[in-house]
């Protein structure tokens, strides 16, 4: 009985691992094909259309600005409050600025951007492609001689690669501003002085680190969301599961990838 239970368990683990490897392979192929169409599509007479890229940029990037601004601002303010509280014991409250500036540009600006984009677009993209899969629209594309990856994945990939860095810069700026407001209220440091200090602390590498990560996150969101859409099983339940899975996996992938990159970039 126990042996059978163990066998069942190990079989499930094995299947999960095999499934994970399969998903990874699928996503890698998707990335390769997506990039192929972006680079060689025009030559292949299947260009990635400008208007669909612009539409995705609007949808994924521009429309995320309001919520991202609020969240980034709040995040910066919270970090400043916690920092001031912790540093007060040492009488070093004003040191909060240097900690905040580097942490936000290297880490939290890009992380919150990734999470907001994953939550907004990770589900929307998976739902859209999953619905198209079910209503045979993907088949319709293929029989028209339109490569589905070129039509659906490449524009999203371009849009994320363009908008993620911009959104990250904006989120970092908003978070720093949020911290500045708290410093003004709590420590009575004027915004101008605050920004001078921030500017003095930051080095270009901090900003590059955030931007580099934002590109990686953009690729992750594209691949996880589109592959979940393409592989959605039939029916409303399958679609629901695919969108949920997409969001959860997008955010997990972002946080884990962030940790790995931080490990290699800092240590």
């Amino acid at each position, binding site marked *: 009985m126990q042996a059978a239970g163990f066998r069942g368990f190990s079989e499930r683990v094995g299947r999960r691992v095999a499934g994970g490897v399969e998903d990874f392979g699928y996503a890698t192929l998707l990335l390769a094909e997506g990039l192929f169409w972006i680079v060689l599509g025009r030559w292949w007479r299947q260009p990635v259309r400008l208007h669909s890229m612009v539409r995705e940029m609007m949808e994924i990037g521009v429309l995320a600005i309001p919520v991202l601004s609020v969240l980034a601002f709040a995040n910066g303010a919270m970090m400043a409050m916690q920092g001031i509280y912790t540093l007060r014991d040492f009488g070093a409250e004003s040191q909060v600025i240097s900690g905040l500036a580097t942490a936000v540009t290297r880490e939290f600006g890009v992380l919150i951007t990734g999470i907001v984009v994953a939550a907004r677009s990770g589900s929307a993209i998976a739902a859209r492609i999953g619905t198209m899969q079910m209503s*045979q629209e993907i088949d319709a594309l293929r029989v028209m001689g339109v490569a589905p990856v070129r039509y659906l994945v490449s524009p999203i990939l371009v849009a994320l690669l363009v908008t993620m860095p911009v959104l990250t810069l904006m989120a970092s700026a908003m978070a720093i501003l949020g911290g500045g407001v708290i410093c003004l209220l709590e420590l009575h440091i004027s915004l101008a002085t605050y920004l001078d200090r921030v500017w003095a602390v930051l080095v270009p590498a901090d900003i590059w680190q955030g931007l580099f990560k934002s590109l990686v996150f953009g690729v992750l969101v594209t691949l996880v969301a589109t592959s979940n859409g393409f592989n959605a099983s039939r029916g409303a339940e399958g679609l629901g599961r695919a969108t949920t899975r997409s969001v959860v996996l997008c955010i997990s992938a972002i946080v884990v990838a962030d940790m790995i990159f931080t490990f290699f970039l800092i240590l």
Partner: protein
Amino acid sequence: MTTMTMTRAAGNDAVIEVENLVAFYGEHKVLDDVSLQVRKGEIMVIMGGSGSGKSTLLRYLLGLHRPVSGVVRLFGRDINRLSGRQWTGLRRKMGVAFQGGALFNSMSVGENVCMPLREHTRLDRKTMRIMSRMKLEVVNLAGYENLMPSQLSGGMLKRAALARALVMDPDLLFFDEPSAGLDPVVAADLDNLILRIRDAMQVSIVVVTHELDSAFKIADRITVLDKGRILMTGAADEVRNSDIPRIRNLLTRTHEEQPVDADDYLRRLTGSTD
């Protein structure tokens, strides 16, 4: 009509040839040694109940699956030996109307119909719009080009899908279940439309359906598929008068009683293997 029959009899002008196609879905054999020819200018109806393998066969004919065993030739070319570009070229000669229409939900009807033109030609917008209107006129949907697919009824969706399938003036048209889910009057309308299109455009048409009335009305030839095998291929009358028992069952809609082995039945219920 006589000239048409003559050219058809004249010979090897098949637009689709399938030879000994075998297909599996997992362990389950869905197509078993299927061979089939569709000739130029004819309406071939592939008929069968659900689970007969007709949808799978259609996916092979459309090149959505590549045959592992057997050969599928479109316009005389083995689809397993086509490069990506040759495929694209071939697909410009094929139009497909899917069962639920499969119109792109984010685009208007007019944009849907224009889509193949936009992808495959370099016509200017105005010409494309005129061409799409012409095709919408053919399927009696003139004036609907600005509506979204979600605003159309089931029959209109199928007709719009037909317009999109026709817009490149294909040599080969596929129609999946034209009458499924429609009331008899609308379904009969669609049948007439299919006949009219064949006569006006000289296009070869493959229709997949389970509806008997519609099949006999439009078909030049019918292929009856059952459990993955072809029971017979022949002119509509030949099929109607066939004395093959399975076909008679299909035509008279009687269910075939299978003898039940009591032991086997018990074994299946209890799931025991001894």
